[in-house]
């Protein structure tokens, strides 16, 4: 049983990990992530990469919606900007892979800032509706700016190359996507130890008070949009290298709703929430399929009959979490941790 961790300075109070045990567990996690691809087949490596891409984008949205309180339904469109930037750079200019990702992120950040301007006037649902515009306008641009985007048929992306190796399988891409995800998550976690990050939280909690405290609303809100879209852009760029084709239909509005659902299910305003939510939303439909796979040898029609049931179960799970755990998966995780901290006593 652990009673508490005594904090003797502001530095320890701000630290990402407050005990040696936590640091040890984090090291174990990193080790597990490093060993993971060697122990699984192509399918699980693929899912791990997809989940990591979604984690990056969900974390971006979490910065904007969870920490700054600005609801956005444009995340998928900003991912599209990143993906198209990367696709055009890679296919036309052949610039290095990591530079493309960086530029993809920057381009998405710039576009995100433009679509963030209405946030100065409108909030909540109204802002959500105005960010839907991003989705439609950018979709129109992707589909009709044919000289750059090749219109509806989209752009085929050559595989990413790093140190002369073609990253053309999920196993190889894992070594880029997952470390990048870890880096970006650490970046996001550290952001909220800085003045900028705290300004976001102040704006979320009460924007007028924040302004009174000397936080420039214009700059803060647009910075939040830019950072969030940067994450989306990098995720979109990775998406482009992962799926190797980018079309206007790759980033529908539904995908933005997916990310919003992910951070709500995971827990808004916590880094862990973005991770858990994105992993949950990506993997649970696949795990439910495993259930179908188990019974199908005995019942060949299982996939036909159970497929619709599976989607209902997934929907019910989301509703169930929202009803019984409105704080999201993060809260369940905290409760589990508390249980072990206090064991053998009850919370």
């Amino acid at each position, binding site marked *: 049983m652990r009673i508490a961790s005594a904090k003797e300075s502001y530095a320890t109070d701000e630290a990402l990990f407050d005990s040696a045990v936590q640091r040890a567990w984090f090291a174990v996690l990193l080790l597990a992530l490093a060993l993971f691809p060697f122990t699984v087949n192509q399918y699980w490596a*693929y899912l791990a990469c997809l989940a990591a891409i979604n984690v990056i984008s969900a974390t971006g949205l979490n910065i904007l919606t969870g920490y700054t309180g600005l609801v956005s339904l444009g995340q998928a469109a900003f991912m599209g900007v990143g993906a198209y930037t990367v696709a055009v750079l890679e296919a036309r200019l052949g610039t290095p892979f990591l530079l493309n990702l960086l530029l993809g992120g920057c381009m998405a950040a710039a576009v995100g800032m433009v679509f963030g301007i209405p946030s100065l006037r409108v909030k909540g649902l109204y802002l959500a509706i105005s960010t839907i515009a991003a989705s439609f306008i950018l979709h129109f641009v992707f589909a009709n700016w044919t000289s750059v985007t090749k219109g509806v048929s*989209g752009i085929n992306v050559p595989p990413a190359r790093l140190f002369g190796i073609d990253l053309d399988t999920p196993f190889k891409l894992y070594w880029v996507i997952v470390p990048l995800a870890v880096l970006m998550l650490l970046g996001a976690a550290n952001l909220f130890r800085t003045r900028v990050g705290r300004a976001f939280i102040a704006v979320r909690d009460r924007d007028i008070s924040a302004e009174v405290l000397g936080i420039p609303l214009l700059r803060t809100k647009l910075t939040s949009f830019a950072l969030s879209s940067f994450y989306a852009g990098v995720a979109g760029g990775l998406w482009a290298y992962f*799926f190797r084709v980018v079309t206007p239909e790759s980033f529908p509005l539904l995908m933005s709703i997916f990310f919003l659902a992910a951070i709500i299910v995971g827990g808004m305003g916590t880094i862990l929430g973005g991770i858990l939510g994105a992993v949950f939303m990506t993997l649970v*439909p696949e795990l439910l399929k495993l259930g179908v796979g188990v019974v199908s040898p*005995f019942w060949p029609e299982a*996939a036909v009959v159970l497929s619709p049931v599976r989607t209902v179960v997934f929907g019910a799970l989301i509703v169930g979490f929202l009803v019984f755990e409105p704080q999201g998966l993060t809260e369940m995780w905290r409760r589990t941790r508390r249980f072990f901290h206090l064991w053998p006593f009850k919370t």
Partner: protein
Amino acid sequence: MLRLSRRGLGALALAAGMAAAVPAKAADDIVLGGSIPMTGVFAFAGIGIQAGISDYLKIVNDAGGVKGRKVRFAFEDTAYKVDASVAVFNKIVAQDKPNLYYGDSTAFSKTINPELERSGQMIMAGASFATELNDPKKYPLQFMAGPDYTEMFGILLRYIAKEKPGAKVAFVNSDTEFGRDPIATSEKKAVELGLKVVEKIVTPPGSVDVSTEVLKLRRSAPDYTIFHGYVMAPIPEFIAQAKQMGMTSKFMGTFWSMDNSMVQKMGELADGFMGVMPYRYYYDEDGNAPMLAKIRQMRPEYQSTPYMQGFLTAMLMVEAAKRTLDKGEPLTGKTLKAALNSIKDFDTGGIIGVPISVPGNSIPVGRIYKADVQKKLMVPASDWIKLEQ
């Protein structure tokens, strides 16, 4: 200490029994993998496709398989999402090592193509008839069990040019990759055939209110209006409003809007609705069609046109595997595709009414069918039309 209740023990025993009873997968099975949309917007097609493929493989396996090897169908639901389709592909490739694969969308076919070429282990066909995929240089390991969308338009235009030389034609398509696919190329084709393309209308996907578009259509007064890129809506709305305005244009569709049960849902509006269909309908008893008779015997109720598409795709894939094994070659993407391309004047058992060849990635054959509202059936309006490649 871990204590097991009697019920727990029972459950464990049951689980163990189930694990032991799993039918063994023979190592030399030929596997046809599939990313099939059993849920989502394309589920109506996926369910038919799955049944069609399963039925054909059952026929093959009941007759002893391919050179004594069974053909197994390993598929999973994709909900018609590209990322889910790729996940299914990776899973089935890792578990079952398929040599044949069925994909669910154009986007998936394009996405998976680099991986298909890299692994070189299989050939793939699917639910997409995209013109872009009909290029053996760019997509050397893929094919489609029918004409591509441009060829479907070609068949329709050929029919129109014969019925009414110099006719005025309008194209109505959805603003999607699927919808835009054949428009630009078909416009040229129409001019070559001496037809006039008087109007091209693009509607947003899923649009319901089409009154302004119908007005535009009336102004151009076409003799024929071809819809593409829709499954059903907004075709009925278009036809209803056009008929109210006294338009005399004939309305036509392409493969995905031509299933009999869908067309008949339009009721009276369907009267005279025409379109191109590469396969015979389930109920078609004309001519020599032993496969259709067999299908009717296996499934007494109506089977959709996606069923026929799945059935024929499986037939062509199995034929390619058979020819490859007959030559004593291993099953790889290259050998299978070469065997597929060697198919010449092949009898499909009546699924397609004429012998077919697969010289490239498509089978440019089709027939015009017309809705008969009294009989509630699509009936042939032309003979089989073969496009030269």
